[in-house]
């Protein structure tokens, strides 16, 4: 049941983003005659403090969340997998250096590093993706390294070496494909983590800048009007919560489906 809930929410999210051009939404248009309008027949989910439609801004925020999470997960998973696999497979000095870097990165609380990076890089979507990716690749790298370490002992790899395959080919054809299952599971939890990170940074004013809508900045703006217009903060929060919950459920389902062991710690 929970699997269908997750898939429905995730599909609805993607559909909402794809449908946007057809709906001709105007999330940034100000209606001064309808400031803080409550949800009702005229304004579907109400209006914010500038009279902008909360519903349309939610859709615009959905697009930002989708773009940032897909881009960040792709970049960090790809970079992490390659670096980690290389480290585990090559061994020696390469492995020592990369492992040290991974240790140092892991010695940072992730969101703190992202906050610091976003602060130094300055606001904007590109910098948001960079900041979260710089933090994000480490988890994939650690996972890929551990996988590569055990996979390189396997007979088919020994056979490939005996047949004279080159290193790059062995890594590409015989090692990386076999470690995809846990990485895919990690990536689906990664989507959830990135959405929270993007919204969190935007909440702090470090991510998406006004007038552009992000679920996180909508909550921040709404927090100033909690008493008079609680809908401003309630709706974007529900959106984040549902999508994150769906991504987590989907990850759980994938993990049991692909038979990946739950990592401890």
């Amino acid at each position, binding site marked *: 049941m929970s699997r269908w809930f997750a898939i429905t929410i995730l599909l609805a999210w993607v559909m909402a983003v794809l449908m946007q051009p057809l709906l001709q939404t105007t999330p940034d248009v100000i209606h001064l005659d309808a400031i803080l309008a409550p949800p009702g027949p005229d304004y579907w989910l109400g209006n914010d403090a500038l009279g902008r439609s909360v519903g349309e801004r939610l859709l615009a925020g959905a697009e930002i969340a989708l773009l940032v999470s897909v881009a960040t997960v792709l970049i960090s998973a790809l970079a992490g997998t390659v670096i980690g696999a290389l480290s585990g497979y090559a061994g020696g000095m390469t492995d020592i250096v990369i492992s*040290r*870097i991974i*240790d*140092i990165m892991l*010695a*940072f*609380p*992730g*969101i*703190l590093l992202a*906050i*610091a*990076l976003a*602060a*130094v*890089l*300055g606001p904007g979507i590109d910098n948001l993706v960079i900041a979260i990716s710089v933090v994000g690749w480490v988890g994939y790298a650690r996972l890929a390294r551990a996988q590569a370490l055990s996979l390189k002992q396997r007979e088919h790899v020994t056979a490939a070496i005996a047949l004279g395959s080159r290193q790059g080919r062995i890594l590409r054809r015989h090692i990386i494909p076999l470690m995809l299952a846990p990485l895919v599971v990690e990536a689906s939890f990664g989507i*959830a983590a990135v959405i*929270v990170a993007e*919204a*969190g940074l935007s*909440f*702090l*004013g*470090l991510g998406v800048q006004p007038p552009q809508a992000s679920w*996180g900045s909508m*909550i*921040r703006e*709404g*927090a100033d009007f*909690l*008493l008079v217009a*609680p809908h401003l*903060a*309630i709706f*974007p*929060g529900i959106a*984040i*919560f549902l999508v*994150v*919950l769906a991504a*987590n*459920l989907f990850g*759980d389902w994938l993990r049991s489906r692909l038979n990946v062991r*739950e990592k*401890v*710690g």
Partner: protein
Amino acid sequence: MLTRLITSLVTLIGVVSLVFFLIHLIPGDPVEYILGDSARPADREALRSELGLDRPLPVQYADYLSGLIRFDLGNSLHSKQPVTALLLERLPATLKLSLVAFLLAVLIALPLGVLAATRSGTFWDSGAMTLSLLGVSIPNFWLGPMLILLFSLWLGLTPVSGMEQPGSVVLPAITLGVSLAAILARMVRSSLLEVLGEDYIRTARAKGVSEQRIVWRHALGNALLPVITLLGLQFGALLAGSVITEKVFSWPGIGLLLIDAIQQRDYPVVQGTVLLIAVSYLIVNRLTDLLYRVVDPRVRLE
């Protein structure tokens, strides 16, 4: 033991250096960023030499390291106070918040995890795990405002923000503690389930020891061992989470200091705060690691 100490030291130096290079190597000129485009060249030069940015990078780095040894993190650009003094002034508030959140999380997670493990497969188990999943998925920057709305504005039970009034720690601590509680509960459950399947538990059952005694006296102690490691790892998430929670509740700790410093582009304070959080996280992690070795003889033998 010695090698572990050395790797810890290397990691520490790495973390300290990363914080330095974070500020100094990133493309873009901090002076430009602080003063904006319209600043006069003379003002830029003045700020540049005040920040010490006119010196070569290795000199700046050496200066930064030697300052660290003397606990000198420079002065705030905004208030001109030493960064160390600012941090010390704000630290107690953050410690109070994290400690209460931590205790709260343990008090929620332990019974929930035990309940789920001892009745695994039942309604109680799936109920507890659903609760835990909800807890992990709820972002704290939303939970905070919602708690304020419900308990402060609608019910009038708790203060909205700050830390002067009695009971003001309750909502921030819940906001910060919920996700930790959720993760811990899952961990307690899976760890306890594993231990309950071991031979010595079967032996205890065969001897006719009561189920309650088996869980609380025989199994729980061993089941909590791996949880200790997790607690160390989660401490960092707690510290970093306090940045957002403090912002939501205007809680005057180092998290709020960091956010204010970022908005004022007060680089020395940003650097000092990030450094303090990262170094405390590292130390706590290594200490839990050590503690784990002390309490679990199996690890010590390896």
